[in-house]
């Protein structure tokens, strides 16, 4: 049997092929926020029963914070358990008239950490 004269390059090339074959099995996608309820910059009549964000691909929302005009934090109730969702919902406490800001952070399926913010006014 012929001796392998250059075993290291051959092993390296084989390992590269196997490694790339493994890489094909990984799933994932970037997520982009498409819209929110209330919409960014919108004015709504009365306290919204729910604050929602819609994404084009699943994302885990890991942090969401609602603040009022003075910067005071307001409570939000969520039931998603940080599972990947394309529609995220959280119920705010009753909101008095004023301007509010929502800040969020999350992890897309491809491993990208994302963040964003939007604001709305309650009349």
């Amino acid at each position, binding site marked *: 049997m012929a001796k392998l004269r250059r075993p290291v390059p051959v092993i390296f090339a084989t*390992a590269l092929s196997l490694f790339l074959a493994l890489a094909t099995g990984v*799933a994932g996608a*970037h997520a982009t926020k498409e819209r929110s309820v209330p919409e960014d910059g919108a004015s709504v009549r009365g306290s919204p029963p729910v604050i929602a964000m819609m994404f084009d691909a699943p994302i885990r929302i890991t942090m969401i914070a609602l603040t009022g005009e003075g910067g005071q934090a307001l409570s939000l109730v969520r039931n998603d358990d940080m599972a990947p969702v394309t529609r995220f919902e959280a119920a705010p406490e009753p909101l008095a008239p004023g301007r509010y800001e929502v800040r969020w*952070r999350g992890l897309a399926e*491809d*491993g*990208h950490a994302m*963040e964003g913010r939007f604001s709305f006014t309650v009349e």
Partner: protein
Amino acid sequence: MLGALAGLGAEGWVGLGAKAALYLASLLAAGSVLFLAVFPSAGAQSRRAARRILALGAAAAVLLSLARLGLQASFLGGTPAAAFDPVLLRIVVESPFGTSLLLRVAGAALCLAALGDRGADRGAGHGAGRGAGRGAWLGAGLFGALIVCGSFAFVGHTLAPPRALAGGFVTLHLLGLAFWLGALGPLVAATRGGAAQGAALAERFGRIALGVVALLALAGALLFALLTGGRVPDPARVYDQAMTTKLALVLGVLALAGLNRMRLTPALRAGRAGAGAALRRSIAAEAGLILGVLALTAAMTGLAAPR
């Protein structure tokens, strides 16, 4: 690009710094293994330098990878304390980001196996069993280098189809860059070891680097075309601005490499006074430009999208 960077807070800068430092440490570890494999007959000083850089780079890559897991959890939770939140840490570890970093930790640790390859330095009298021993230690180290470079393909935009192709281009691009970066320290050490030794290694590196640059550039160009979907470059896009700046820095590296090959290495070979110092300065400038490329890549992959 500058606008996007100006919007970064302290948290963003720490994350960016850790990411760029991890790029550097990972590529130095992988590149040092490639150096030991490609230049088995390099002088003892060069190989010692490669081993030292390998040990430091691999240790830093492991520590920085673990730190980035915590930093990611901290970012996701919105507070520094979230870095230790078990729920967030589990989410991070189970995500492609975690897979990529844990693969890098394993790859960097495996790179250290190449430190066991002492065969090439022992001389003719200690050659018994050298081939098999060298193959095993170096093979393990090379597999580690491959895992380190390939780990970058397990996160982010390269996961979009066609994944195997994008992953392959990323891996080849990084193997080429690692080879280049990993050779710089040993080259400097070789010029300190004597003019003849320095010139011999620089000449050999220059010849191989031609092919490596072609591979690196081709893989990079194909990857850019894949990630951008073949769209026309747009100067208004942050991603394209960063890519243009990166190309300018790469051209600077190539210009310095050309200068080294055409002028400084022949001067060193001819034993001209100050030639060694001039080559070391040029290599240091090359390293500085590559650091710029890594920092820019860390910024553009975090702040901008290719499409």
